[in-house]
Each structure stands twice: as structure tokens, then as C-alpha cells.
């Protein structure tokens, strides 16, 4: 049915990636293309993974991701709630500012930011990549704010009448209702830090601290590309994100408690 055919379409490039990852470089671009490599070059995988120390890079990236997820979840929830539910002068203007901050292209704030982090002594640490998440990330604040706005206010109003303050409301009312949105934020943060390239490029100097995306760059030099290794490494480094997504899916399936309100 429709689901199957669309899924098939989505799968085809992926299958080609897998197929290429098992061929020697010169066979990848053979005409006509061979889907099933014969014989499959399994050695590509261990060779790609040791081309540069991917194990270490993976650990580094996992660390950065974990801290970023925590930072985002904590800060963005509170800030988004404020934008969604609390009235204050200047709130709407500030929201526009929030949106605006997502718009400046990175290459340009790159140099001033680097100078700032350099002055703080944070270069070559993970701090420039993680600390800013504790100050909120515009994208996820926006996402959560939109989500919170869809929640009916009944539960919160009831809680307020019972004397709860903002913190309790967030903790007891909002959070349980927001599982899908929070899961989304977690998944996206994970994916964003996993695939982030520009920031690690300039902030991490010692190769021991490199992340996975920096590792993938090593397969391309100015004049040649190690295609098979690139495919193999990309597929493997993709697995953690997929895993996270699979696991977090259960939170989607369980749905949210909203519907229980009417009963």
C-alpha cells in the first residue's frame, strides 16, 4: 500500500549507501551499477572505523549530546512555559527577538564567538558546545511554546486555585502532558549535536577531543575522497541517533493524557 511504496522510495538511497560501503572504491561508480557487491568487502568497516579513532570521537560526541539534552530540557521547558502562559510587558516583542536569533547565519558570528570563548579560556574544551544550551536554545523554546499553547488551561487553572506556584505547575501539570514534545526536543538535540560540524571544527583543537562529524571529514581531502569508508563510517555513526529515536518512539505511541480531560 501507500506506506510500503513510500517507505521503499525512502529506502533506496539508503540501500545504495550500504551497498557502496561494502565495495572497494573503484567499484562504487561502475556502470552499470551493481546493487549487491560481489564479493562484499566487510573489511571496509573496521578499516573505516580505525581510519581515525572513531571510538573516542563517539564517546566525545555522546558526552556533548547528553549534556546538551539535559541543558535544553531544563532551560527550554521553563522559558517556553513563561512565553506561553505568563503575561508580562514586552513578552511578545521578546518572542520576536527569540525568532530573530535563529536567523543570523553562523559563519558570521563564528569569529566574534571564537574570540569570546578564547578570552574565557574555553577553546579546546567541550564548554562552548554545551554551556549555551543551559541558557536555552531558540528553536526548542519556540517548539515547546507552540506545544504548550495547545494544552487547554483547565488543569493549570485548577492547580493555581489550589495555590500552586509556577514551579509546581510546570513539574506536576505541564511535564506529564508534554512527553511527546519533550521527547522531540531530546531527539532533535541529540541529532543536532551529533551532526554539528562548524562549532566543533573551530572550538576543538586537540584531535583527542574531536567529534564524530569531524571524524567523517577526514575521508575527504582536497583532491580525493575515500567513498567506501565514508559510506561505512556514516552508516555506523548514524546508528546511535537511530537507536535514540527508536527508543523515544514509545513516548509517541503512548500518546498524551490530554484526552483524559473530557472524561
Amino acid at each position, binding site marked *: 500500500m501507500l*506506506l510500503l511504496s*513510500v*517507505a521503499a522510495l*525512502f529506502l*533506496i*538511497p*539508503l540501500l545504495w*549507501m550500504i551497498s557502496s560501503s561494502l565495495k572497494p572504491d573503484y567499484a562504487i*561508480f561502475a*556502470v*552499470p*551499477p551493481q546493487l549487491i557487491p560481489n564479493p562484499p568487502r566487510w573489511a571496509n568497516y573496521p578499516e573505516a572505523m580505525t581510519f581515525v579513532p572513531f571510538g573516542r570521537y563517539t564517546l566525545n560526541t555522546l558526552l556533548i549530546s547528553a549534556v546538551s539534552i539535559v541543558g535544553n530540557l531544563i*532551560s527550554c521547558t*521553563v*522559558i517556553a*512555559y513563561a*512565553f*506561553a502562559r*505568563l*503575561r*508580562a510587558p514586552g513578552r511578545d516583542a521578546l518572542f*520576536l527577538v527569540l525568532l*530573530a*536569533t535563529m*536567523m*543570523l*547565519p553562523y*559563519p*558570521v*558570528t563564528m*569569529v*566574534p*564567538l571564537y574570540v569570546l570563548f578564547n578570552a574565557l579560556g574555553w577553546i579546546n574544551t567541550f564548554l562552548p558546545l554545551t554551556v549555551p544550551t543551559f*541558557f*536555552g536554545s531558540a528553536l526548542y523554546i519556540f*517548539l515547546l511554546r*507552540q*506545544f*504548550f*499553547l*495547545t*494544552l*487547554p*488551561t483547565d488543569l493549570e487553572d485548577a492547580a493555581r486555585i489550589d495555590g500552586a506556584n*509556577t514551579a509546581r505547575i510546570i513539574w506536576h501539570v505541564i511535564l506529564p502532558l508534554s512527553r*511527546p514534545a519533550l521527547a522531540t526536543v531530546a531527539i*532533535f538535540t541529540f*541529532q543536532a549535536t551529533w551532526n554539528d*560540524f562548524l562549532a566543533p571544527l573551530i572550538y576543538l583543537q586537540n584531535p583527542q577531543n574531536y567529534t564524530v*562529524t569531524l571524524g567523517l*571529514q577526514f575521508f575527504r581531502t582536497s583532491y580525493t*575522497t575515500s567513498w567506501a569508508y*565514508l*559510506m561505512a563510517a*556514516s552508516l555506523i555513526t*548514524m546508528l546511535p541517533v*537511530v537507536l535514540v529515536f527508536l527508543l523515544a518512539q514509545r513516548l*509517541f505511541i503512548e500518546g498524551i493524557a*490530554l*484526552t483524559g480531560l473530557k472524561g
Partner: protein
Amino acid sequence: MARLSATRREALTFYLCISPWLVGLLLFVLGPMVVSLGISFTRWDLLTPPRFVGIRNYERMLNDPLFWQSLKVTALYTLLYVPTELVGGLALALLMNQRVPGIAVFRTIFYLPSVISGVAFVVVWMWIFHPEAGLLNLALAQVGITGPRWLTDPRTALSALWLMSLWGLGRTAVIYLAGLKGVPKELHEAAVIDGATSWQAFRHITIPLLTPTIFFNLILSLIATFQTFTSAFVATNGGPLDATLFYVLYLYRQAFERFSMGYASALAWVLFVIILSLTLLVVRSADRWVYYEGARR
């Protein structure tokens, strides 16, 4: 001490809650932004100190054919991409929302491509678009059509990049999915019981309730397409004949390949103003078509 009024207290709580964001804003955003604005009034090659030149960079922009070309390319791409992403993403999300055994696997299949690292993603598609040996033209040949030269033809290069980007729809779809989960099924079912067709129920109940999500995806889309970089950088490097010279690619080139950081900063600020204006338009219009069930106070 006089007791604060409820409104005052609420305002204070608001500012308290967003205080981390405000601090981060000043340190990590506004500060560098102001500096980059300053840089836009200079000539700077990053190797020697900047030199003040006033508004020369902005004047240069007006007479720079590549500036206009890059605006055109980016605008065209936005017109192509944003509608298809919004609609396609929703369609995909509906597919992903079915209660079918193994739906988790399907969801993963759809989401997977958007997770593949930039370079690998583009490289896979460069091969699919290969004029002689690529999957796309080979498939077209089966049906008797001679496919165009895609990435090496100035007329089709941009469309090729657009097609490529659709493989990443999964990400948008996941956001829609979260939004769809917030639409109570009972409402839909009630409407159907009352005699509405599935499509009518969808159109008049689900979609309005989805408008906050649509709004979110729209803004995100706008911001993202205007900042397209990796696909053009890797697949075509702005060519052929500047047919895919995206704005941020041009900016990057000026900053790091042409040693013109001042000009690049000016370009960045112009881009910023453009996106800001567009977003303002969308936000203003939002009042008319975005429906928040938990009403905005």
C-alpha cells in the same frame, strides 16, 4: 513591603523564568551580532586588523551581480521547498500516524535520512543524479525518458537539490507527528459519527488544531531554506554557472575563501533583515489563521 499585585508577580515570574535565556542572549547572541555589525563596516581579511570603510560594503552589494544572483537562487529554492515541505511533511506524518503493526520501523525509515550526516547525505544523491550511471536516470530510461543532466545542467541543478532535500522530510514529519498526537481522536470520531466524511473531519478539525505546528514548521522552513549551505557546497559548489549559488554559500566564500570578512558580515546582516521581515509577516498573519486551544492570554 507592599504586597505585589498579581499582575506584577506574574510579570516578575516571567522575567525570572526567562532570565537564563536573556543572559545567554546578551553573551552568545547580541554581543557577537553587534560585533559582526561593526565588522560589516570594515574591510577585514582575518589576517590583518580590520579597516574602517563605512557603508562601502553595502554599496558594493547593490552593484554585485552575484549578490542578486544568490538572492534569486535562494528565493526560487524557498518557493520550491517550503510548500512541498509543509504539505509533504504532513502527508508523511499521517502515514506515520497509523496504528499498524511495525509502524515503529516505518517511522524510523522515514526519519533515518534526516539523521545522516551532511556530506554523506549529499554524496549519495550526487551519485543518484549521475547523468549516465545514476539510479534516477536509469529508472527514467526504463520508462523511455532520457533524463536531464541534473547537477551539471544549469537549468536542472536547483531542482535536483530540491529533490534531494525531500529525502529529509522525516524531520518535519516527526514534528507534525507530535502535533497530531495532540489532536484528540474523539473529536475526529465524533465528527464522523455526525456524518462528516473523513476528509471533512480532517479539514475542519484536525488541521485547525494543527495550525500551531504548521506555524512552527513554516517559520522553521523559512529560516532553514534561507540558510541552505551544505548541499550546495558539496554537490555543486554554487555551479554550474552559479545556478545554485545559495546566499550563505556566497557569504561563506567571501568570508573564508575571498578574505572579505567585512563584506560577508554585511551580507549576513542583509540576510538577517530579510528573514526577519518575512518572519514578521508570517507572525502577524498568524493571528488570523493559527488557532490555539489553550488560548493565548
